[in-house]
């Protein structure tokens, strides 16, 4: 068994694709139309054969309730590693990204949390 995928529920797949590629810098890996929605994945530019992030349509109402509760509490839906949280924070701020937690040290790691505009908080981690 291998971990090849991880997923995030997003309110709008097209908007999510735009945010995750144009703002965050990921690359679209797979896009397969599936009726009203699609199978949509992105990968890191630095690890294009790495784990794929599935941008999953929010088509199951209870998931929306859960997502909303997490978002309002500021809890990240997932986390991405970066080399330098402070630099990424400044880069994303310039692109208009909204942060609910500015770069914060916690032991040997540094964290920051931003809004992906699709219903999720995303945490950046520098180890």
């Amino acid at each position: 068994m291998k971990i090849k995928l991880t997923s995030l529920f997003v309110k709008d797949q097209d908007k999510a694709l735009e945010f995750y590629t144009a703002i965050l810098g990921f690359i679209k890996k797979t896009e397969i139309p599936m009726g009203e929605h699609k199978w949509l994945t992105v990968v890191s530019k630095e690890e294009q054969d790495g784990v794929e992030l599935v941008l999953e349509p929010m088509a199951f109402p209870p998931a929306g309730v859960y997502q909303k509760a997490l978002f309002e509490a500021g809890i990240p839906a997932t986390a991405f590693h970066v080399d330098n949280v402070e630099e990424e924070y400044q880069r994303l701020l310039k692109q208009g990204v909204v942060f609910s937690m500015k770069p914060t040290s916690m032991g040997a790691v540094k964290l920051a949390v931003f809004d992906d505009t699709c219903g999720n908080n995303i945490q950046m981690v520098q180890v």
Partner: protein
Amino acid sequence: MTYYQQQVLSLKKAVYPNDDLAVRVIQAKRYIDDHYGSVIDLDAMAREACLSKFHFIRSFRKHYGRTPHTYLKEVRLAEAKRLLQKGIPIRHVCFAVGFESVPSFTRLYKATTGKPPRKTSKKAIPDKKVPVAIPTFIKKIP
């Protein structure tokens, strides 16, 4: 301030109250990241953090969830994988990432990744076929 941020700050206060210690541990981790290709021992790592060996091991584990030795092995094996995928021979990779014995490197690599180094890249150049530069004077001998 969000609920999550409050939790982060509260955990930080409870688990990592000493910022200076974190800085020292990070310094030692960077030392490992920069010197994994050399023979580095616990004394050198602890010295980098300005901590006694026992305090250093405890602190490193508390911050990174693994011992410095385990972390060093992880860094070496990750770099070994990268070099093997480029087709660099096993023996060269073994010594380039700081291991001192090919059999122990091969054993550890297999135990960690689930396959022997030779299977990491199909394009890997076998050790015996590594092109060796022949000195010019030898080529001239009839």
